[in-house]
């Protein structure tokens, strides 16, 4: 498969004299796969995800995502890139409590220029598909963790982005809810989305990812297909 994400010697350093969060990473992620990034805390996993999503910029190297050199994207271009190419799923959901569920889901579509009525219709469809259509007019604070993460997933896919980035998507959920969320991500992958998943949980990675990358101290220390064979 063709690479949809290509890291070329990418580094990210936050403090001038500090240890780099990412240190010369070379990595290609194939389209249509579920790739899990694992490693100890502070290893650079979230930083890697942030760079892919153009939420942050590399200090060195080149990073191409879906044909876009994200190292060259300015603020507005990065925002438009995220609208069209990236779906974000966070450990703590990051829903806007003042908005209703359907408004949260429709928000990226509205930002992408879709008229409000059309955005809400698409959001309604997604919520129904995810089994939480009944909560459309409620606010996130009235939902369970699993329901909130489903809302976040619906929000992440409303613009049909080719890439989904999930940072510890089950970290704040109980086991059953977490399994439900991972099943959703698997379904989305089958529909064609590329999924890059950060997780601490080796069982979760083994059960869902087709490739597992180990990241320790900002460097890739392991990279294998999920059938046990090294890459």
């Amino acid at each position, binding site marked *: 498969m063709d690479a949809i994400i290509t890291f070329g010697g990418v580094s990210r350093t936050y403090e001038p004299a500090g240890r780099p969060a990412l240190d010369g990473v070379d990595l290609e992620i194939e389209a249509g796969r579920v790739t899990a990034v694992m490693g100890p805390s502070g290893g650079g996993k*979230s930083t890697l995800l942030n760079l892919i*999503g153009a939420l942050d910029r590399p200090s060195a190297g080149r990073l191409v995502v879906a044909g876009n050199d994200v190292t060259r994207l300015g603020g507005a271009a990065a*925002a438009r890139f995220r609208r069209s190419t990236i779906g974000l799923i966070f450990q703590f959901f990051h829903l806007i409590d003042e908005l209703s569920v359907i408004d949260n889901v429709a928000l990226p579509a509205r*930002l992408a220029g879709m008229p409000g009525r059309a955005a809400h219709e698409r959001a309604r469809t997604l919520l129904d598909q995810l089994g939480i259509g009944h909560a459309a007019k409620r606010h996130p*604070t009235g939902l369970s963790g699993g329901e909130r993460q489903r809302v976040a997933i619906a929000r992440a896919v409303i613009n049909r982005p080719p890439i989904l980035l999930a940072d510890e998507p089950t970290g704040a959920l109980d086991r059953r809810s977490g399994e439900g969320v991972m099943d959703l991500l698997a379904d989305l992958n089958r529909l064609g989305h590329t999924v890059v998943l950060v997780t601490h949980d080796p069982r979760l990675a083994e059960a869902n990812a087709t490739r597992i990358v180990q990241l320790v101290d900002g460097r890739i220390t392991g990279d294998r297909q999920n059938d046990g064979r090294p890459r």
Partner: protein
Amino acid sequence: MTPIAAVLGAGLRRRRVQGAAVGIVVSMSVAAATLSLTILVGSTAPYERAFAAASGAHLVVDVDGAAVTPEQLAATASLPGVAAAAGPWDIGLAGLVDGSVAPGAARPPGPAGGRFAFPLRVSDRDAADGPVDRLTLDGRWARGDGEIVISQRLARLQGLAIGDRVTITIAPRGIKGAEAGPSSAASAAPGTARGATTVERAVVVVGTAGSISTPDIDAWLGRTDFSAVTIGGPTRLEMLYRVDGAATAADLERVRATIAAHLPAGAIVSLDTWLDARAAVDKTADLMVPILAAFSVFALAAAAFMVVNVIGGIVLGGRRQIGLLLSVGVTPRQVVAILLGQVALPALAGDALGLVVGTIASRPMLEDTIRAFGLPGGGELEPGVLAVTGIVAMAVVVGAALLPAWGAAHGSPTDALAGRATATSTRRRRGPASGGGRSLPTGRWPALATAAADALRPSVWIGLRRSSGHPLRTAMTTGAIAVGVAAIVFSAGTYASLRAIAPALLRDHAAPIRTGLVASSQVAGIETALAADPDLGRVTSVTAVDVTVPAAGPAVYFAYGGNASWVGYAMVSGRWFDGPGEVVASSHLLEVAGLSVGDHLTIGRGAATVDVVVVGEVFDVESDAPDNLLVRGDAGTIAPLGADPGPARFEAEPARGVTAEAAIAGLRGRLGVPVVLASNSDADEHFLLFEGVVVVLGLVLVLVAVGGVFHTVLLDTRQRALETAILKALGLTPRQTVGVVLWSVLPIGLVGGLIGVPVGSQLTRLVLSDMGRIAGPTLVPEGFLDVLGPLAIVLGLSGIAIAVAGSWIPAGAAARSRIAAALHAE
């Protein structure tokens, strides 16, 4: 260091921006309050303060130099009732030649073939110090001939400075000694003969001085120079006295009588008391009080709004920190101390800075204020004002912080911890669970609203939603903006009104050419000469006649010779008189007499009376009419009273195509009476002062309002950092992020403007009406109370400008904020 102090210090270090914002808002508020209160206090009884500082003279006595010797006058210093004395000094008249003054000073053309000379009243006083009337002095006193010390007033009017070389000469001819120049010019004794020889002395200005007791003295000369330029003119000796006791009118009369008894009969040619001078200054100062009081209230209200808004927001925004502290065992009292410390310490720094800035800013305005009152010196800052302002400001800060801090410290730690860093997660939408969001409602009106929302860009509807997210903060910010807008409308309205009132009182646009008093025997001749002058248009004479009005008592009737409808008086109501039998009256006279426009009025003089109809209420502040009890009408109206025609003045307009200055130049020297351009430098200076105060204080208040909005929006954007990061992660561009912040404050700015406009307009009306009551008393024509009209509504849009100005920097910071850092800050 105790643990609590360590937490406090860490909090201060971590929240540097917040602390700086608190300090800035407090400093701006304190500076505004200090400025307005300092000027307000300085305008309260300014004469007494200056008089006490200068050890002013309770009595200023001028005697005929030909009838009294200096030794005789000096001996009066030891009379009973005299506490101290200074003098005697010679007083005389001289002239300041125009050709030698500093470049740039404008001079009217002199008489044909002659050098124009401004009349000066000069003294040979030998020192600035003394037991009575200590002069304020810049530079030094004259050490001998060839040097001159001029009054601060003369320096200002003539554009002179220390080091300038001037030429002085004998006084110009003419009644009152004034052909043009400052209205304080001294009088020449009527009928004084001048020698044909012109004496000129070149002197250098070595100092400028101000006298509380002898403001009519324009310059002080060395003995020989004095004698040379006053030669042939009337001489007077002047003595200054301080009296024992309270120096009441009775005390002054007793001392006067004692002095007069020791001098030849009729020797005293003039006597001024400090009571008259004080009354004149206080009346002017009183005019300032309404404006300054209004601005002081504005400043204090704005300061209180800002501080309460800012401080309350900081405390409420620190609920998570409170929860953490409580959960690790810090007592509520200790939590309150920490919160207060985090607010009070930067506020204290801001307080001190604000006092310094306010003090520095106050000094030039205070100097201008004192100068506008005609007083010497620059005014002294009152330490009490600074102390009170500083203490009250800190009290407001502590009070604003204490209540929310106490409430938060005594709340549930769990609830406080649950109040996360985003403002969104602390607010729970009330109402039915099925509703409350921007869901798609049903029905016709909701559909229209949805359609309207659909038409809005995301940054607009997201911003508008935010504007109502925190009702208390929104209300406080709206109030602060309303104060700012009200200050703008008040400043602009008062400025515009003063600009309209000044020429309306002076009437220089209608009748700019004025003569001095003409003796009744010369009136006919002057009238003929003026009527025949090709450079003049309409001309009218004005004679002041003492009359009585029932229920009002003594009044002044200003009798016009002929049609005077063009002389330019503004009317409070009604119209100008058309001819005999009709009059216009001042507001105060109508009020005292219980009359209205349209009523009949009986005017009496001796046993004779005449009945007239009041056709108008004139906007008039006439210094020649005590208590502003006056009537204006045709001379023929009071003919039945048999009044002897007294001295008259003439007012005239220039002919078409001729300037007033040219017309005056052509008349000067031909009539034998002074002909001047209508001016009132005292009033001009007062109006300039009022306008300056209004503009400066208005700007300061606007800055305070902008500062308050800045801090509120900064707080809000920081508390919404996570929400903003989420929006940006979902695709909000930097420009849209700025738009969200700005749209969140635009409704607040609009509402603040809508509130501020009527408040400012009404305040303008109240202050100007109050000023009219003090100055006249007189009512102010409606057109002058509301000069702005519909423009005030446009000024209301300044609320939006204030909101945007205060939000710009925080909006930019939000746009530039790092998304990843905010998202993972949880």
